[in-house]
C-alpha cells in the first residue's frame, strides 16, 4: 500500500482506539450524551475494541515499516493520537458524538 494511505490508516486506527478508551470513562461518556455512568457491558466492549485497535496499529506499523521503524513509529504515534483525542474532547467534542451514539443503545 502507498505510504500516505498507510499513514492515514495508522493515524485513524490509533485515534479511534484512544477515542473509544476515552468514551469508556464516565466523564467523557456523560459529556458525549451518555448517562452519568458508562454501563458495565458497554465499558467492557469499548475498552476491548479500543485496546484491540491499538494492537492493530502496532501490527499495521510493523507490517509496513519493519520491526525497527514500525515499533518506533507506533510508540510515538500513540502519544500523537492521544493528544489529538484530548484536543477533540476539549474544543470539538461534538465531532465524537456520532461515535458515542453507536454505543448508547447497546
Amino acid at each position: 500500500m502507498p505510504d500516505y494511505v498507510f499513514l492515514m490508516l495508522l493515524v485513524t486506527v490509533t485515534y479511534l482506539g484512544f477515542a473509544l478508551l476515552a468514551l469508556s470513562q464516565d466523564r467523557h461518556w456523560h459529556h458525549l450524551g451518555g448517562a452519568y455512568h458508562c454501563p458495565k457491558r458497554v465499558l467492557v466492549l469499548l475498552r476491548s475494541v479500543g485496546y484491540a485497535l491499538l494492537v492493530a496499529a502496532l501490527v499495521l506499523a510493523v507490517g509496513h515499516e519493519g520491526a525497527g521503524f514500525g515499533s518506533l513509529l507506533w510508540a510515538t504515534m500513540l502519544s500523537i493520537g492521544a493528544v489529538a483525542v484530548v484536543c477533540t474532547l476539549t474544543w470539538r467534542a461534538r465531532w465524537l458524538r456520532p461515535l458515542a451514539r453507536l454505543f448508547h443503545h447497546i
Partner: protein
Amino acid sequence: MEPTFRASMNWLHTWTGVVLGGLLFAIFWMGTLSVFDREIDRWMAPATRLVVPDDSLPAEKFRPAIEAAAAAGATMWTIVFPEERQPVYRENYRSKDGFVLRFLDPVTGAALPDPGTLAGTRFIFPFHYSLNLRVWDIGYWLVGIAGMAMLVLCVSGVVIHRKIFTEFFTFRAEKKPRRLILDLHNVTGVLGLPFHFMISLSGLIIFFSIYFPSVWQLPFDGKRELFNRETWGNYSRPKADQAAPLASLDDMVAEARRLWAGEEPFYMRVTNPGDAAAVVQIGRSYRDVVTMRVETLFFDAPSGTLLSRFETAPVVTAQRFISGLHFIQFQHWTLRWIYFALGLVGCVLIATGYLFWLESRRRKHTQLGLRGVSIVDGLTIGSVTGIIAATLSFFVANRLLPADATVLGAGRASLEMWVFYLVWLATFAHAWMRPHRAWIEQCWAIAALAVAAVVLNGITTGDHLGRSLLDSRLQAVGGMDLLLLIGAAVAALTALKLEYRKPDPVRARQHA
C-alpha cells in the same frame, strides 16, 4: 523528611523542576530544533541550497585535495558524502595552521565560499548536548545532570499524579488559569511520557563513556586507545616515514559497495596521507536503519587491499540502536515530524510546570511579601520566551551581517553567536525589570523577529515563499519559513490573549 512517600516525591518533583527547569527547557528547545538541524543549515547558508545529482562524483576527484592536505601537514583527511538532507560534500582536516572545514559543490566538487555561520549542525545541535561549554566538559555534565533530573521528574511525576487514569484525556480549557495549567502539565506529561522517558534515557546512554566512565575503565584497565579500538574499531598503524602514492580510490569505494550489497558509503578518511603506511577508511551509511551502525572498512592506501573489516559487537550494537532512536539520522520524514511535535510537547510540559509553581504560590508570596515568585517569574520568562527570542535573533543576525563582518577580532560566525547570547541575557534583565509586561512584550518580540527572519530571507536570497514552496530544491527553506510564520502567529495570539485577559486582583496587587 516528608510524612508520606507521595509527599516526599511531591517535594522532589517541585524543587528539581524549579531549579533545573530553565536548563531543561533550553535542552529540549535546542533538541527540538536539532531535529531539523540540516534544514536550518540550508536556510542559514544559502550557498548550500543545492540538489544532490543522481550520479555521485568519482572518488578520484578528491585525490588533489588529499595531496594538498598531506602537503599542509595533515595526519588525517576526511570527507562526508552528500545526501538529501545535506546536499554538499563536507571536507575536513587539521593542517599546521589549524582546523580546515570546507563544503564542496555536489556536482562540480569545487569548494563553496565559507558560509560564515555555525548554523544548525554546529551551533544549535552541539548546544543541545553540551551547551557549547567545552571547558572541562562542564556543558556535558550539566546536560547529564538535567537528563538524570528529567528521569527523576518523570518517575516522581507519575507517583504524585492523583488521577493518572481518570484524567488521562482531561484538559479543561475553560477553567481558571491554575486548573488549566495543571491539566495541561498533566496531559502533556502523561501522554508524552514514553517519548520523554526514552529521549532522556537514550541521551544519557549516548554519553555513557563520560557519565559512567567505570563502564569502560574497568574492563580496559583505563586504556582509552584500547577501548576505542575494541568498541568503535579504530584501526591504526604507525607511520612508515616513506612516501608512497595512493592506489585507486574508486576501486576501494567500489569494493565497499560490493561488500555492503550495493549500499552507499557515508564517509571516507585517509590517515597519514602520502605515507607508505597510509590507511583509507570507508564507513557504511546508516540512513535506512534505526541503528547508527558502525561498519568500517580499512584499506592499505598504496595497494588498495582490504586490511580489516569492522562490525560492532552485540552490546555496542544495542548502544548504537538506542543512540539511533535519539539521533534520528535515518531518512524518515514522518518520524522526523513526530519527533519535532513531541519535542514541542516536552517544551510545553516544562513551561507549564513553571507556570503552575508560580500560580500556586503567587497569592501567598504576595501576602507574606516574599520575593520567590518574582525571582522565578523572571527565570521562567527568560528561559521560555527568552531563548526563543534569542534563537530568532540568531536567524535574523544571520541574514543581516555582511560576509566579511568582524567586531573586536570576532568573525561573522562568532558574531551570530554573540547576538544569541546577548539577546538571551537581555531577556532575563527585561523580565526582572518589567515583570507585569514581560510575557506580552517578549511574545510580540518573538512574532516580530520571526516575521523579520522570513522577510529578510526573501530579500537577501530571493528564495521567498512564493518560490521556495514550488521548487523541490528549496523545500527545506520553504518549510522553515512556514514554521517561522506559524510560530509568529502563535506568539501574536498569545500576546493578544494575555493583553485582554480579565484582570487578576492578586497579580495587580503584586505589581502595585
